């Protein structure tokens, strides 16, 4: 477009800005959840995630070291330490020793306490208490500080949800269930559809046009219609609820798109190659396995990605055909819905669970986007 006179108009900047705005608008929701999954429950509940990226001002109550940590330096008894010990570093602006006056002193000031000792709090959180007599008591002095702490993130949520075997709400089991559902449900329809697509694309037989029309029609049949009849059927033949049923169901529901995509692609392959092979005495079976399948790789990959994303993200089919009352075979989507019900306010759990389920599809998406786009174009544009 840039080579056309006049296309570089004064609108260019507006275009850049509005695209940037749209991209940020579209990313904002996902980033919000992503950031939240790295924060503790308290952090999420106390401030919006968009504030977590910047240093925040917090009021903290910290006890100085207890008297038994004192050391004698010459004539002085000294308690020293770091107020940020055990938490991320920050910068103290003001501090106090009473809950009524938490901003009584500036950082760096030295204050004389009631018992005659002196207390100094430095901006970096180092404090020093000095006294000529020995400190007594069992607990340390309370210090109220107002500090600016840098952003703080943790991977604890992921450890808790993925690696902790004692966590009954953990996602690791559901993760493997989802994987177990997904892989056969992706591979089997491809195989069945590839043969059918070849027959519909390159073999002559009566009824071919009607079959193709049927496939196109079945593309849009809502799978909602299939739930009860198939559940009845599965119960009648003894499959019941389980992996077997969900694999078959996904295979059936994925087939129309698979056949449609693959047939459209195979029809476009050059006729010469196939006819030459036939002249050389190759059977249809050989042509299919040696020539058509390798050449159709892009279409096979597109469909595989579709089917993978669809089965991984599916909730309805899994709920109807797989998840039974024992909950042993629950998939991630189902588990997240359950967490939404029982842990509605615990965003650290929800965000982490959602991200665990989203990580694989997003990775597949970015890695294989080329094929996905190609499949979309082949599947809808005529």
């Amino acid at each position, binding site marked *: 477009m840039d080579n056309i006179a006049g296309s570089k108009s004064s609108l260019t900047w507006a275009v850049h800005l509005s695209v940037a705005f749209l991209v940020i608008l579209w990313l904002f929701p996902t980033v919000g959840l992503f950031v939240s999954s790295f924060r503790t429950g308290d952090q999420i509940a106390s401030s919006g995630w968009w504030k977590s990226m910047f240093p925040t001002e917090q009021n903290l109550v910290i006890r100085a070291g207890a008297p038994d940590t004192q050391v004698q330096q010459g004539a002085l008894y000294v308690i020293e330490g770091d107020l940020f010990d055990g938490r991320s570093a920050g910068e103290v602006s003001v501090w106090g020793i009473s809950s009524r006056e938490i901003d009584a002193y500036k950082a760096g000031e030295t204050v004389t306490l009631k018992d005659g000792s002196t207390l100094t709090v430095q901006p970096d959180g180092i404090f020093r208490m000095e006294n000529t007599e020995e400190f007594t008591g069992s607990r340390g002095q309370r210090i109220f500080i107002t500090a600016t702490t840098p952003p703080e993130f943790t991977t604890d949520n992921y450890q808790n949800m993925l690696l902790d075997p004692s966590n009954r709400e953990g996602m690791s089991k559901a993760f493997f269930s989802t994987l177990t559902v997904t892989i056969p449900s992706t591979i*089997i329809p491809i195989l069945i559809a590839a043969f059918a697509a070849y027959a519909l694309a390159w073999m002559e037989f009566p009824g071919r046009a009607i079959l193709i029309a049927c496939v196109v029609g079945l593309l849009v049949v809502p799978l909602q219609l299939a739930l009860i009849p198939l559940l009845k059927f599965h119960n009648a033949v003894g499959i019941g609820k389980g992996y077997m049923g969900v694999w078959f169901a996904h295979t059936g529901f994925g087939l129309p798109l698979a056949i449609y995509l693959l047939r459209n692609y195979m029809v476009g392959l050059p006729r010469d190659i196939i006819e030459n092979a036939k002249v050389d005495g190759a059977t249809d079976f050989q042509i299919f396995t040696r020539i058509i399948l390798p050449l159709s790789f892009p279409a096979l990959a597109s469909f595989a990605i579709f089917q993978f994303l669809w089965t991984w993200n599916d909730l309805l089919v899994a709920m109807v055909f797989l998840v039974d009352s024992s909950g042993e075979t629950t998939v991630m989507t189902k588990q997240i819905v359950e967490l939404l019900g029982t842990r509605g306010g615990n965003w650290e759990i929800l965000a982490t669970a959602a991200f665990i389920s989203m990580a694989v599809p997003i990775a597949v998406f970015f890695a294989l*986007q080329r094929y996905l786009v190609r499949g979309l174009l082949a599947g809808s544009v005529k």
Partner: protein
Amino acid sequence: MHPALQGLVTIIIGVGGCVGYFVLSNYLLDRFLLPARAMTADETASRRRIGLIAFFAVPALLVAGLVVMYGDLLSAGGIFRLIVGALVILGLWRLTGFIFAEGPLTAGHNISHANMIRPWLFLFPAILALGLYLTYPVFETLRLSFTQRIPGGYEFVGTANYQQMMSEPKFWEAMRNNMMWLVIVPAMSTVMGLIVAQLTDRISWGNIAKMLIFMPMAISFVGASVIFKLIYDTRPIDQEQIGVLNAIYLSLGGSEPQQWLTLPIWNNFLLMVVLIWIQTGFAMVILSAALRGIPEETVEAAIVDGANPFQIFFKIKVPQIMPTIVVVWTTITLTVLKVFDIVFAMTNGQWGTQVLANYMYNKLFTANDWGVGSAAAMVIMILVSPILIWNVRNARKEMK
């Protein structure tokens, strides 16, 4: 057995079974049934004997199986099964004449007959799966929608299920909401997709921008629901808001935080936002490809004639990609008609957000009322069927 192992075994059995079926059936056809060579009369006679035994062993087993499994062959179902069995036998009888012809045969005869059979070998698993998992359920659901479950079976109740459904306010709420979804979501997704496609085509980092806007396509509806529930989250007024929507609302002068998902009518739009967010990327990808396919001469001619960018877009480009816009629109319409996960996960149809698919699910699996549930499924099917017919007609036109 561990599910992962079971999965692996299934993959091996499933894939192995498929491959085995295709290889074996073709091998059988090419080597024994109809080899690509001339056959003497002796050969065909012995082939016919073996073939007849094999072909009649199958129906005999079939009938025996029917008798053993269902015993009572004189009921309505039994007679139906007998008729099916008879048809299978008749079909096989006709086939024997076709495959196991007698007398000396030429290679050409065998090859042409094998080529007539082979497509059906290739198609058989697909036809079986499509028939059983998509075609049969349509008719079975239709039948169920006219019946009611009674202990031990079903009874025909005519249109009572439909009447009951029509009398429920929740059904009409679902219909009304579905219509709103149908109008708004495809329109907004297509328009946003078109805008993004047009804008990103003109800038250097357009592909990255497209990729990022396309990304929600990979996210499950459930995941998206969690994402947007955080956005719509509400905290009491004296606490800091952690939901973006309330934070913005309060900073713009709102008096108190709103429970967004419980606000009638508005909550529907907030649910639609989730689907629009997901579907815009899809519309964008397809429309962007269509925009690139527009012949440059038409745009150049418009520029020469002094058209401004807006005129070029609305008067030159949009009319040319109209067929694609229609396809995108109908594809998103289909998605909308089946929308279930978002409503199920975010509100489960409360506060006036019911939609047909969720209504149906509640009827089927919560109320356990298969009759009304099937009737609701048929309503979805009826709403889909105009698109179905239109698609099939387009496909047939193309075939010619």
